[in-house]
Each structure stands twice: as C-alpha cells, then as structure tokens.
C-alpha cells in the first residue's frame, strides 16, 4: 500500500472500534476490549510503517507525502481535505501511536478485567469492590470490574480517532474536526463516572473552558480561509502568501495588527484553551476526575499535545513579522504566556497532595515550557520536548494510576477509609510495587531533567540553551526556576509515595498491579530514557556527536529554512544541572522523614503562601464570581425574565391589550349602539307594525273578500280617475 493510503486509513480502526462497540459488542467486555486494543494495534502498526517510510525518505520536508480529496463545494472551487506526512507529522505519529497503544493495554488492567462484578457497583460510579469467598470460607474484598467497561473502550477509541485525524491532517479544518472530537471525548471521559457531582462539574468545565479557545480558533480558521482561500498547510505556508498576510493590515484595522498577527493570536487562543495555558488552565486539574488512563490520554498522549502541535504546525505563520532578535507579536505573546504558565503552575504543583493533581499542574507547567520555547523560536526543541514529555508524562500518569490502584487494593483489603490518591496516605511503596516504583522513578527523573540519562534532560536543556542563546534572559531565568520547582515537587512526590515507611494500613497492604498495567509502564520507561538520545546536540561536550542529532535534522527539515544549530554554551547546562539536581535533592531532604499524620513541612515554612498555592491562587473562585455567576444571571434573569418575558412579551401584550381595548371601545360605542341598534330597530319595528295591524286578520273569509272588493274598487276608481284626466 502506498504511504498515502496507509495515512488515510490510520484514524479509521479506532473509529470503527467505537461504532462496533457502541452498536454491537457492548454486552461483551472481552470482545469490546479486544476490538479497541486491536484497533489501536492496527493504527500503531500503520503509524510505524508511515514513520519508518518517512524517516527513510530524503527531503521529506520539501516533498511530504500528501493526498487530497474534494470535500466541500464552495462556489466554483472546492475546499479540499487530505492527509500529509511530513517530519513533524511522522514524529508526532510516533509518540501518539506508542502512548495510545500503551494506554489502551493499560486500561484493561486498570478497569479490573477478569475481576468479579461488585455487588453494589452501578453504572456511572467507581467500582466499590466485590466480596469473594476463598476455599477456606474467608471473605475478601477485592477490586471489582468497571460496570461500564465496554463504554470506556468505545470512548477512548473515539479519542484516538480524534488524535490521529488531527495529526495526519494536511489542513486546519480536519485538524479542527479532530480537535473538537477530542474535546467531546475528554468531556465524556472526564465525566466517565458521571454520577459523581464533582465529575459532572469537571466534565462541563473542561468542555466549556476549551470551547472558549475553540470559538476563537474557529474565527481564526475562518479568517485564514478568507485571506488565503485554502486551509491546507502547503497553501498557507507559501512564502508569498505569508508575506501577503504579514503586510495586510488586520480586518477593521484591529489594534494596528497585521492579518497574520490577528490570525495567529486567534489560533493561539485555541491552544491556550486546549493546552490549558493561563488563563484558561482551570479545567485541567479538575479533569483528574476521570479514570487515570484518561488522564494519561488527555494530558500526555493526545489532547494537550494537540494544542501544542497546532501552534508548532502553524509556526511559519506565527513567525511572520519577526526578524533577527525581534519576535513577532504572536510569538512575544506566546513567550509571555508560556513562561508565566510554566512558573505559575509549578508553584501550585508544589502544594498539592493529590498524586494526580501534582502531575496535572506539572503538565500545565511543561506545556507552558513548550509554548514559551516556541515563542522564542526554539522550533526543534519544542517538538523534542513534546515527544519526550508525551512519553514520560504518560508513564507518570499510568504509574500514578498503578499506585492508586495498589493503594485501593490495600484499602479494600483492610476496609480502611482513606483517600487512595493522597500522597500523605502512602509511603514505602517501593517494596510493595517495585516495577511501578522503578518506572515511576525513571519518569519522575525524566520530568525533572536528571542529567545525561533521561530524555527530559536533553529536551529541557535544549529549550534553556535556546532561551539563553537567543538572549531572552527573562524567559531563561524563569524557566530555570520553574525547572528547579519541577525537580522539587517531583522528588516530593516520589519520596512521599515510594520512600520511607508506609503511613497507612492501605499502603502497607498495597500490591503490585497486573501485568497489563506494568507492561506499558516498562515500555514507556524505556522510551523515557532512550528517546532523548535521538536529539543530543552535536555541540554537547564529550558525548555530542556520538549519536547523530536525528531530531534536529529530521524535525528541522519540516520548515523551509532549517533552524540553525546553536553553539554550545556552558551556562544553560549549569542552570539545568543545578535546577535538576538541586530540586531533586531538596525534595528528598525535606520529605524523606515524613511521619504518619504529620503536616506538610512546606506549610510550616511558607505559611499563608502555602494556602494560596494550595487553593491554586483562587482562580476557580475568581472565575466563578466574575464569569460563571454573571453568565447565569444574564441567561436566566436578564435574557429570560427581563428581556424576553418582560420587554418583548411585554410589548406584545401591550399591543394585544391595546387591540383588545380598541375592540371593546368599538363594541361598546359603535357595534352595540349603532350596528346592533339598527338591526334591532328594524326587527322590532316590523314586529310592532305587525302587532298593530294584526286585527284585520280575523280569519273570516268573507271579510277578506270584502276588503279585496273595496281595494279593487278603490283601484278601479283610481285608474278611471287618472284615465279621465288624460
């Protein structure tokens, strides 16, 4: 099969799996997960074939695999959609395929396939566990299978379809289709346990917050389509098109921007929503309400990466207007927002106790890294970090799921009521869950940028080096501090969870999870280390140049002008070493002796700042007061009661009332006296006359005859008289 055909087919297996599960196989759990995993496997296979063909093609950046079809008739022309595989697509496909497949496999174990059904389990609630009796007559509570097992696989199938569609698209329209389908899936999956009020609130929050970005993005797409006449990347990125966009003022002279800048900002707002950048970051931590594989899916493999992918994809457009040493407006905005988000989210992550929330904020922070890096033009470094981040963050989420699962198992076993996600209820899991521990450690170190061996180091170092090399001091400093914080909270997490002694009974009885869960961890851990070796800068001391800098050469060729290689500088390396090692050791030092029931030492040190951080700078409360409540007031009170029922219906009723009153007036002063009066008068009059002359009707025939005679005579005389006169 040609590469183009395979690319067309890539998104289809998960979609088919979705439809088949929903329509036919949802009663059989085994069949459903086989279908879903089989579909993911097919797509994975296709992606690997495409990837291998892509890296073995010379000058793929100049001649990408591309195939288009006519989709929408628009006047004399067609809006074409199609698929395209260029280096960026190939690289994205690579990590998407791997992480998606791993998450699919992991989900089987996570949802307790093979376990008995719980007695009290209901659709829409987390399984409560099932009681079984062993051969000795002892009763045990064990984890029970998810009641909506099949539905979960259907939804993540659709999710994967959305991501594949987005990645293989050659145009913004189908990218947006995939983008929004993922939005729907995140909605459905965050609220997978929809009976929980918190989950229900989180699902809506996620969908609506990202939708704020989406509507701006839709405008951006419409604007771009208007200006270029096409949405395919090839057409948009033609140098003459870009130049035209850069020199045309924005529609309506908006803020004196160029068209390219306005389009860029509109599209970037889409990313702000989807990749949870400040100020639209609020949905992402709440999204932890979903099952953990979903968190991994949303926050590592697919959705948030999609936001970054989109800006990377549109980079040539965003770059329009920047010259050497001078960033274009969109890029400056990105650099500011990204940098701010990176440090902002990192500080919040420090004060979180929920194992998944720490990761959620770290995701926001890392995405901020990427946005900031793209803002300063570090194109290759961003893609590199996107890939490494996808692997190690997927690993961390799946690992945290494994931890939670293990602790839940302990909680069910002991019957203890503890929050299985609170890190202060854990500790000492290193011995209980060795595979999870080691893989989590690798993931955590990769996230912190542990030098040389982990992938995160290479990608993060490259970002810092770019920031330093291009002279963006503020970005460099802030990102370095954020890196330090990242290392600190990661080590805090690892120490609290795995090291020391168990702080609860549940942690004491935690158990290593099923192989379907640990196998993906191991595979992802391998990538979390090795993938970094593909992008070691040639100029790095000692080991630079041993391996080819594949990432730079391959990804860089996506752009028409390949980005230049920075010369090596010692300072960013020092900064990243200090941040990573310093943060890690500080985290270990602070938390290694955490006792059962003891306060967070950070709380004692930071005091009120800790409270602010713990409450995420009160953004939820702020938005609730400033946006949510007023919106509801406008909808319910203003629009409904005042505008529609009050004013508009009021005017209508007023008119109706006038009509009704005019009618009354007519009735009382014209109809009744004049029209009715005349009719009555005629009727009554005739009646009266009849009554007065009825006396002549005696019934006596001879009287009638006499009357006739008299009248006849009268007539006769009259005629004779008149006759005589003539």
């Amino acid at each position: 099969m040609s590469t183009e055909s395979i690319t067309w087919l890539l998104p289809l297996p998960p979609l088919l799996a979705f439809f088949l599960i929903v329509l036919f196989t949802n009663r059989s759990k085994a069949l459903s997960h086989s279908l879903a995993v089989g579909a993911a496997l097919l797509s994975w296979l296709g992606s690997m074939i495409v990837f291998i063909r892509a890296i073995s093609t010379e000058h793929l950046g100049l001649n990408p695999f591309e195939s288009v079809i006519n989709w929408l008739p628009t006047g004399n022309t067609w809006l074409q959609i199609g698929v395209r595989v260029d280096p960026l697509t190939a690289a994205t496909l690579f990590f998407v395929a791997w992480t998606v497949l791993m998450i699919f496999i992991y989900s089987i174990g996570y949802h307790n396939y093979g376990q008995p059904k719980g007695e009290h389990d209901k659709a829409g609630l987390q399984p409560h566990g099932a009681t079984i009796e062993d051969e000795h007559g002892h009763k045990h509570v064990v984890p029970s299978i998810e009641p909506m097992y099949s539905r979960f696989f259907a939804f993540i199938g659709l999710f994967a379809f959305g991501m594949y569609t987005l990645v293989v698209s050659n145009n913004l329209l189908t990218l947006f289709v995939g983008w929004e389908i993922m939005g729907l899936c995140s909605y459905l999956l965050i609220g997978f346990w929809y009976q929980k009020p918190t989950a229900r609130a989180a699902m809506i929050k996620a969908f609506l917050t990202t939708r704020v970005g989406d509507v701006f993005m839709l405008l951006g797409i419409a604007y771009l389509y208007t200006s270029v006449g096409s949405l395919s990347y090839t057409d948009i990125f033609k140098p003459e098109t870009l130049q035209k966009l850069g020199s045309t003022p924005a529609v309506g002279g908006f803020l004196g921007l160029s068209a390219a800048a306005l389009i860029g900002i509109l599209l970037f707002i889409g990313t702000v929503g989807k990749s949870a950048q400040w100020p639209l970051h609020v949905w992402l931590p709440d999204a932890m309400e979903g099952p953990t594989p979903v968190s991994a899916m949303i926050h590592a493999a697919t959705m948030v990466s999609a936001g970054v992918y989109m800006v990377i994809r549109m980079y040539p457009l965003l770059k329009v207007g920047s010259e050497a040493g001078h960033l274009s407006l969109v890029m400056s905005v990105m650099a500011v927002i990204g940098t701010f988000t990176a440090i902002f989210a990192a500080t919040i992550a420090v004060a979180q106790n929920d194992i998944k929330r720490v990761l959620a904020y770290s995701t926001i922070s890392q995405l901020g890294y990427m946005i900031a890096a793209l803002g300063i033009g570090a194109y290759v470094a961003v893609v590199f970090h996107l890939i490494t981040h996808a692997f190690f963050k997927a690993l961390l989420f799946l690992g945290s799921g494994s931890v939670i699962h293990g602790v839940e198992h302990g909680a069910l076993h002991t019957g203890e009521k503890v929050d299985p996600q609170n890190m202060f209820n854990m500790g000492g899991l290193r011995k209980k869950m060795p595979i999870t521990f080691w893989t989590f450690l690798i993931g955590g170190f990769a996230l912190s940028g542990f030098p040389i061996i982990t992938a995160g180091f290479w990608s993060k170092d490259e970002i810092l080096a770019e920031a330093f090399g291009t002279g963006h001091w503020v970005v460099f400093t802030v990102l370095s501090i954020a890196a330090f914080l990242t290392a600190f909270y990661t080590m805090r997490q690892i120490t609290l969870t795995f090291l020391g002694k168990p702080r609860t009974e549940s942690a004491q009885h935690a158990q290593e999870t099923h192989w379907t869960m640990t196998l993906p961890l191991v595979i992802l851990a391998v990538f979390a280390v090795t993938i970094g070796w593909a992008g070691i800068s040639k100029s790095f001391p000692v080991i630079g140049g041993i391996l080819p800098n594949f990432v730079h050469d391959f990804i860089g060729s996506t752009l028409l002008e390949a980005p230049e290689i920075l010369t090596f500088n010692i300072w960013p390396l020092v900064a990243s070493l200090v941040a990573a090692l310093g943060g890690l050791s500080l985290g270990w030092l602070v938390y290694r002796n955490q006792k059962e029931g003891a306060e967070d030492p950070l709380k004692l040190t930071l005091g009120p700042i800790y409270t602010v951080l713990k409450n995420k700078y009160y953004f939820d409360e702020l938005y609730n007061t400033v946006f949510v409540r007023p919106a509801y007031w406008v909808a319910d009170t203003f629009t409904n009661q005042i505008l529609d029922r009050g004013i508009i219906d009021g005017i209508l009723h007023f008119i109706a009332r006038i009509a009704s009153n005019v009618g009354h007036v007519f009735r009382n002063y014209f109809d009744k006296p004049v029209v009715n009066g005349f009719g009555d008068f005629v009727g009554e009059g005739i009646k009266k006359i009849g009554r007065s002359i009825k006396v002549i009707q005696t019934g006596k025939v001879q009287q009638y005859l006499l009357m006739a005679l008299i009248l006849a005579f009268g007539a006769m005389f009259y005629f004779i008289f008149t006759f005589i006169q003539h």
Partner: protein
Amino acid sequence: MIPLSWYLIFAAILFCVGLYGVLVRKNAIAILMGIELMLNSININLIAFWRYRSPDGIAGQAFAIIVFAVAAAEVAVGLALIISIYRRRSSVVAEDMNMLKW
C-alpha cells in the same frame, strides 16, 4: 238585434247577485255557488264582447272556455275542501273556519 248594453247590464246584475251571495251567505257551499255566478257573468261579458266586437277571432271563446275550466276545477277543489272540513268539524259555516288567523 239586441244591443250589447243589454248583455252587459244582465251580466252586471248577475255579478252583483253572485257577489251578494258570496258576501252575505254563511254556508260555504252557497259562497261557492256565488262565485260560480260571478264567473258566469264574466263569461257572458266575454262572449258578448266577442260577438259584437271581433267575431272573426276566437280569443273571446277561448277565454270563456278557460274560465269554464277554472270554474270546474275550483268547484272540484272547493267542494272537496268543504267536505273535508265538514267531516272534521261537522259544519260548513264560513265564520267557523278561522283556524288560520294569528
């Protein structure tokens, strides 16, 4: 030859006799007879005028025959009505037949 006026005077007298009978008699049959007399006086007039004025045409005779027919029909219907009333009310007095007044 007898002049026309004689016939006319005779017819007028006959008409008045009939009219008198119609107006003053109480018996419905007598009233009917009075009507017959009046009709016949008309017939005399018709025939007389025909004979003296236009003996070549047949209009006068035709009129007279139509009047005969009308008279015959009238008698037939009138007698039938009177008999019917008599059967129900045992009376042929015209003044008693006042059911149709308001």
